[in-house]
Structures are given as C-alpha cells and as structure tokens.
C-alpha cells in the first residue's frame, strides 16, 4: 500500500484545486503528441495531426485532453486505493484501447512540465516529488490489469 505524507496529500489536493482543466489537459496531451510523435498512433480518427500547429488547433485533441485530466480526479479523491479506483480504466486501456502502458509515463512527464510552467517558482522540488509520486502510482494502477 502506498503511504502518503500529510505534505503529499495536501500538495496533490492543492494542485488539483487550482487546476484549469480546460487549459492544462489539452496542453499536456498536445505536448505529448508533439514531443513523442509515436503517441499519435492512438488517435487515427482525430483528423489533422500533421504538424504542431494542427495538433494544437485540433478540437478533438483539446476535448480529449480535458477528459484525460478529469480522469485524474477520481484518483485525487481516492489516494488510498488507487489500484481499485483505476481497475476499470486499466482494463479499458488494455482490452479496448490497446495502449502501450509506456505511454502513460510519457503523458505524465508532459503533464508535469505543463504544471511546472504554470506554477513557476511554487513548483518546488518537494512539490514536484509529490506530484510525480501521485502520477507514478496512477500510472502503475493503470497498467495493472494488462496481461
């Protein structure tokens, strides 16, 4: 079982209470699709992803970025049982979406960078550690139902 310090709990709650989902979600997903272009393989039906400008202007990408980020909400509310919280989504990503779990880490790195850009100095090393720990546990939970 993952043990969370008080600092980690409050840091995660704080970050997500200030989260601008409609900006950060799309920013993280578009960054992932641009920085790691092979991730585009999962979005064949999203239309024009031919270059960075197209990706950044693509409304389907934006909508999906917001959806993904909201997917973290249930984790924020259930930090003490992320395994169970994400079991269903894990099955979905494995059985239906066929997403290589390595991609979860790529997206979470992009999300970390977007959040760092927004928080600036407030994104201290300790805050970064808490945020990355949270994302790492979510990523691990999402990969658990793969077989």
């Amino acid at each position, binding site marked *: 079982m993952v043990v969370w310090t008080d600092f980690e709990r409050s840091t995660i709650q704080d970050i997500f209470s200030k989260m601008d989902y409609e900006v950060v979600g799309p920013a993280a997903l*578009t960054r992932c699709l641009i*920085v790691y272009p092979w991730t585009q393989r999962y979005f064949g039906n999203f239309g024009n992803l031919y270059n960075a400008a197209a*990706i950044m202007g693509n409304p389907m990408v934006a909508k999906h970025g917001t959806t993904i980020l909201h997917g973290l909400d249930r984790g924020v509310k259930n930090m003490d049982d992320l395994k169970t919280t994400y079991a269903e989504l894990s099955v979905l990503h494995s059985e239906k979406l066929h997403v290589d779990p390595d991609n979860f880490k790529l997206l979470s790195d992009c999300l*970390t*960078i977007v959040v760092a850009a927004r928080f*600036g100095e407030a*994104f201290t*090393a300790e805050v970064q550690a808490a945020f990355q720990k949270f994302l790492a546990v979510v990523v691990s939970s999402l990969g658990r139902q793969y077989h």
Partner: protein
Amino acid sequence: MSLTDKDKISKSADAIGADALSRMLVVYPQTKTYFSHWPDLGPNSASVKNHGKNVMGGIALAVSKIDDLTAGLLELSEQHAFQLRVDPANFKILSHCILVVIAGLFPKDFTPEAHVAVDKFFCGVSLALAERYR
C-alpha cells in the same frame, strides 16, 4: 523559441543546473547514491551548485558539437563510463529535471516545438554519453 533562446538558457545556466540537480536529488532519491561523498545535498549546497555548473558546461559543449555528439563528447563519455560509472538510465532522469526547470523559468517560450527540440537534443547527448560504456 529557437535555440538562440539557449542564450536565455546560457545566461541562467548555473542556476538551471543547480536547480535541476537539486530537484533530481529530491524527486529521485536513488540518485543520491552517486553523491555520498558530498557533505550537503541540499539545494543551497556549494557542491550541488558547483556540480550543476559543471553539468551545464557539458551541455554547452554538446551544443557546440551538435553535429557530431559522439565525437564531441568522447572524453565525457569515457569519464562517465570508466570513472563515474553512472547508470545511463539516470541521464534520462536528469534531462527530465532540466526540462522541468526550463518550463518553470520560461513558460511562454518553452512551447511544445521548443520542448521536442530540446528533448531530442538531450536524448542525443545521453546516447553520446553512453557510447563508451560497452
């Protein structure tokens, strides 16, 4: 942001190096194992600041040798391979921390296009640094 915005980066190189290194030591505690000989691993530690400067110096060297990183970083690769023996997985970790620092310092300039360019460059540097390992 073009890599002449590395002028922005090169002006703050020392600060970036120090911040990235101290972040790495906090966020990825396993990296502390390489620095057991330092008395102080905190962010204000002279050892950390100095070493951050060294690392960014290495990156500046890599920028100047960008068209042949393998040849340009040969000596550094040998140093990392035979003396320091740093597991190359850690290059990725430090690269990520540098990106986080740059994003925090230059949020408007660190666009996705800039990000992919810098990440690609760091990957090339990491590869060149690992050349002499085996």
